[in-house]
């Protein structure tokens, strides 16, 4: 099939089989290796990306589902070496260790903050419950998302 969709705001036209995984399209065809493969069955969340602003597992999403859609990967958040607020909070709150879960974790958190600007701790934990981190006890990760929500709110208030 000829697939037309957007990745990180860029229009993409790709000749691919309809059952090809989004994970392979991103990693192999588009070289977006920030998307990780940890289990290939939707259990670990390392491959989480946004599909029309919803967090999805790229390992369980296939080309046939993508026509006309907007895909955002971790590479779509930072611009020319500048991290966005959520990424910065992950760095500064010491929420990153081995880093293999980090990109998927940040994308799940991003999806949460896009639909809920004042998440409670339970809501953050629930939003991240599809992402496994083996290095931490999730404490700093939750704090990073909490702080990002606060900073984003402060930024919105300043803008007003």
């Amino acid at each position, binding site marked *: 099939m000829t697939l037309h969709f957007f990745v990180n705001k860029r229009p993409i036209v790709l000749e691919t089989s309809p059952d090809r995984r989004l994970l*392979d399209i991103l*990693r*192999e065809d588009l070289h*977006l*290796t*920030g*998307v*990780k*493969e*940890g*289990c*290939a*069955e939707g*259990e*670990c969340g*390392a491959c989480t990306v946004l599909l029309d602003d919803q967090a999805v597992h790229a390992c369980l999403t296939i080309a046939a589902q993508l026509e006309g859609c907007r895909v955002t*990967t*971790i*590479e779509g*958040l*930072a611009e020319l070496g500048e*991290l966005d607020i959520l*990424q*910065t909070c*992950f*760095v*500064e709150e*010491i*929420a*990153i*260790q*081995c*880093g*293999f*879960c*980090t*990109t998927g974790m*940040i994308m799940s958190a991003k999806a949460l903050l896009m639909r809920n600007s004042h998440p409670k701790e*339970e809501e*953050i*934990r*629930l939003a*991240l*419950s*599809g*992402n*496994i*981190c*083996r*290095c*931490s*006890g*999730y*404490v*700093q*990760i*939750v704090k990073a998302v909490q702080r990002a929500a606060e900073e984003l709110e402060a930024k919105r208030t300043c803008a007003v």
Partner: protein
Amino acid sequence: MKLIGKDKPIHDARGKAAGFVKYAGDVTLPNMAYIALVHSTIPHGCVKEVRTERALGVPGVYGVFHCFNTTARTYNRYRSNFAQNLPGEERVFTDYVRFVGDRVAAVAACDQETADKAARLVEVTYEELPFSIGFDDTLSGRNCLAGERPVRDEFFTEIGTQPDDDGLIEVTTVSEMPRLHHATMEPHACVVDCDPYQQQLTVYSPNQAVHGIRLVLADFLEMPYHRVRVVKTTMGGSFGAKQEWFLEPAAALIAKTLGRPVKLVYSREEAMVCSVVRGAMRGEVRSKFKPDGTLISLSMDVLLDAGAYIGNAADYIRALSGKPFRCYRIPYFRFCGRVISSNTPVSGAFRSWSAAEEAIMMERNFDEAARQLGIERIELRLKNVLLSGEADRKSGVPLENIRVRDALEQGRTSFRWDELVQADRAFNESSPRYRRGVGVGCGGHGNTYYPRFNDYGEGRLGLNEDGTVQATLTLHDHGCGTVTAMRMIIAEVLDIPDTSVYLAEGDTAVTPVDYGCFASRTTFVLGRTAYDAATALRDEILDRTAELFSLTRGSLRLENGAVRCRDDECVNITLEQLAQASMLKLKRNVCAQAQFNNTSNPGVTGVHFAHVEVDTWTGFTKVLDYLAVQDIGQPINPAMCAAQIQGAAQMGCGAALREKMTIGKDGRCTESLSKYHLFLATDLPDIRVLLLSDGRSEEGPFGAKSIGEISYVPAAPAVCGAVNDALESALGTLPYDPDCILKYLAEERDS
């Protein structure tokens, strides 16, 4: 101190947050072949035939490699230094399969999809043999490995004099622990590049010992060591899973045969079944106490299932026999360890190298003893833990400023243990469904190989032309901040910003020969090496400054990245000026080297506390509160230490309540994360951490001790103790998952 004790993110945190950092699986080289492995589908048997025609017929396939067209030479996956006397027991592709998952063949192709497709077309014919799936099969005499006894190794040791039993209370507990998966989020991977013209192999792999891989590959492939270069790549977690070599030999052999780069990335299924697991263990502990709670005698009989290859099992079981002496005072000790084989995944290194299993057995026994003696659980431990100034009785090494007693006392207060005990009692009396309990776990560990063998490290530092520092140590950051910690140590000594230090990780072409980053030796041994190298560089800087600028050596000091003079405040020579002046005038670089010979191994301990609620209807246990108290000495980077400790608590909660790999009657093992239940963000409370820093080590950098492994040791015992407290039970088989708890409750009702 300006840097030590400050919170810093891991050195590559920004790149990781951006998805920019490359792991081995992200690397692509020109003309690279992708490998897919073919594994045994039977637990035990001989390969009679491998048919490759259909696989070779797939366009894009470069070759099919199997037991009948590759070398019969063997290697040992566990070998990591030349002094180990280990037999080669593994072929790259075997004609005698020992478990479901043994390597039989591999396909190399133009892309992963093609390799995977062709691998499914390789036809293997087996002659099946009887097999064992664990202790009961093997000990009942089921033949599981041709030519080998069911009990592969036996180890006995005794310390002290057997006491007179008069008046002593004997407490016996039996514990059984299942196989565990490390569950590193990054599955194993490696890329091997081959230069056929220089006969050079370059291996890129996330691993804990670049020189270990070099040694095994070079010997296996009959190449000189300098022709094998191993580069440690960013590691997506290890916990011991990446300290044995099971995919590098296959990848290297294929790269060398094809004369092109290859990439081999394990799937999750392969990472679970075909790498290493924490071996299943069964142990009986018999302790004898005086009525006042003083431990007089400890006897342990431990069985370890090595799985299909013996790997590290003989060392692992011996290591266990030394662990009790890192925490408790034991006048008489008797240990019998036996290693069995079975046709199951291979046991190997796992965080704490048996200390976690030892602590589960030991702490369960202490809880039971407390009940039988009528002594409060923390009081019983306080009576028997080692105190500052005592020695490890097994090795004879002084434990220096061990602080396990303080950890127990401070944790008791901080956790509000006594209040929780009272509150739980009231809660349990009023709740028909839920039961609450608290648990405590103690444990000790080491910081180095010493005195098992003489540990040492080498570090080289030098000034660049602009005054920044180039550091060379053989480091393997697992993701816990090793590089950052070393930069902080070096920068603290030189009084420069840590960002002015560049530190490469392990690369056999660049960094000195080293044992590798395990045994919790990184901060203690290599950190001290970094400290000594920085001190030597500081001396060199002052010597060269005195020489070049005609100043008195004794009046000089390093301050804020410049050399200052006590006698003349106007002297302010930057490291850049010095480096350039030395090059131009003295015709030499400002550099230093240090070799640190380690001769101590202080007591490093932890005490964890857990509060749980068990749902007696579902058997599900919720962790309500958790406190980890670690006797860490000087923490170099407290926030990264805390993050690592919280991860250890998560892993321990998993071992206590959920995690197990089961072997089916057909010999197939758990092979999916959907059936291996890890703790998620919704499952855990805000894990609290208390670092006790006054028990400083004498040799560690700035008094630091280890943290990576010790933090895991007390975790599962604390959670298990809490569940047993809640249910007034003495459950022996881990994990205490809903099946286990409901079975126990049903038996209780029936009795």
